[in-house]
């Protein structure tokens, strides 16, 4: 099994619902976002590329790419970040992480890993989201888990479920019959930073 995701950028409307869905489902602390929506026009939100009137606006929702050849897993000195052998999901063990941030330096996908620089604070004083989301800890690294608490129970990631444009597809890339495999086979796609040789499991259908 090798879970992967395909994101149809022609259907993405840049609404950031996936980012919020992720934040709620995983009860993310204040200031932490595992999923962000990038655009092709540069660093400022909702910026189009090109020169007026020939502009182009395309969104790239970005989170951990769950690489087949993950740079982070290789460098973690204690194996706190590891590739789940059953699902291919790159996971992070909060109880093991020593907070050296080697994985953050090794990951080429700028900003997908986050560190709890302080005792996690929340905007509401009760936990939200899935019941079995692991508790967030101070001074450890965390990131997108493909909603492991859901997907290991046969569910789908929160970002995909709530996407209003239905732009996200998730499933087993090893199964040729899965929707995600079919889309990757039939559609033209892009991947982020393919030249870094990390073999990401997230495909952007263009």
């Amino acid at each position: 099994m090798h879970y992967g995701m395909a994101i149809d950028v022609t259907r993405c409307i840049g609404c950031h619902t996936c980012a919020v869905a992720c934040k709620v489902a995983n009860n993310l602390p204040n200031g932490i976002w595992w999923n962000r929506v990038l655009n092709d026009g540069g660093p400022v939100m909702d910026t189009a590329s090109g020169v007026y009137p020939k502009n182009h606006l395309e969104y790239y929702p970005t989170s951990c790419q769950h690489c087949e050849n993950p740079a982070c897993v290789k460098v973690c000195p204690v194996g706190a970040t590891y590739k789940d052998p059953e699902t291919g999901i790159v996971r992070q063990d909060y109880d093991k992480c020593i907070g050296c941030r080697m994985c953050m330096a090794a990951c080429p996908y700028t900003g997908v890993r986050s560190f709890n620089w302080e005792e996690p604070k929340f905007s509401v004083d009760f936990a939200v989201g899935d019941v079995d989301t692991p508790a967030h800890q101070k001074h450890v690294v965390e990131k997108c888990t493909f909603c492991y608490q859901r997907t290991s129970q046969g569910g789908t990631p929160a970002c995909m479920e709530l996407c209003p444009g239905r732009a996200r597809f998730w499933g087993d890339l090893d199964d040729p019959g899965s929707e995600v495999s079919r889309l990757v086979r039939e559609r033209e796609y892009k991947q982020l930073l393919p030249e870094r040789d990390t073999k990401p499991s997230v495909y952007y259908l263009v």
Partner: protein
Amino acid sequence: MSENTSAAKAAKAPAARYGGKGLNIAIGVCALLAVCGVALWIVQLTGGMVQTGMRNLDSWGAYITMFMFLVGLSAGGLIISSVPKAFGMKGFGGISKVAVWTSICCTVLAIGFVVVDMGQPFRVWELFIYSNLGSPLMWDIIVLGTYLILSIVYLWAQVRAEAGKVSHTALRVIAVVALVCAVLVHSVTAWIFGLQQSHELWHTALLGPWFVSSALVCGTALVLVVVIALRRVGYLAVDQANVEKLAKMLGAFVCVDLYFFGCDLLTSAFPNGSGAEVVAMLVAGPLAPFFWGEIVLCVACAVVCFVPSLRKNGLIVAASVAAIVGILFKRIQLLVGGFQIPNLDYASALTPMAATNWDAGMAGVYQGLVYAPTMLELGIVLGVVALGGLLLCLGLKYLPLKPAGEEE
């Protein structure tokens, strides 16, 4: 020469204790600063690392810069001391043990900086239980630990050899092993950065040899400063010829280091691709003061070392300090520069946890340096450095580091 003979006589005195009021004051000041550093570290651990300048997009800062820098400083001393022994050459006078002691102090400091950088220092035991032997960080921990133990053994063996309890052959074997380990420590520290394909500035095969050359520069410079200072206060006697020999070596090392830098810049910039962006960031971006500072300081150091009429003690010390500061600038460029250019433009969800200058908006994050240390970080850095100073002074006071008789 009279200075030499009197110092040599003093060395024959049986008591190892040394030092007067000055050394005691230095020990007191260092101890006080070290205690302040520990207090600040506790503040950092309890209040959170949010009090540092580091954030998700620049996740390493002053501590790791200092770690790189001190690993460099440490190897130099050991190499200067062990090369003559390992190859059976005439040494640099009685500086061998002092050089190894400075090296030990720097290694302890380097380990200290890794510890203060860790988010969960109480989980450090996991390194030995869940060791991922594929991680360059794990290699570094192993090599650094071995190196520290070896340096201590080497120092001990030298003391025992002087007492006739360890044979010269055994000492020579230890010197060879220590030398290999010193080169390894450097290469492995370089690999923590150089093996990461994530940051273009770091990902170069040259990084290993370049770290070794930088280590030789700042290590030799540190030994020169310490030796000239100790000779001045009559702790040990060193021939001016040996000081000049060391100074010439320093000049050569500085040139090699600058040559490596030039090679790396040219290789990055020539294809005029993304590497050119990295070079532009270094030479004309916000890190430019560090870049040009390094070049000017290193060239000045080389000039002093190579022009015979300039090789006076005051100027040699100034040149050595210039070389050490130059290498520190290089470390800053390498570490901060690595995070300076993002691989993905970071749109949206810019939060206080993601970027250092987030409150100034996107423009603030992109203009100038992505990272600057906070007062707390600088305080902890000072505290850790003071701990090293304390060790150095205690060693001078209580350990038999003075040269005894003729060196091999």
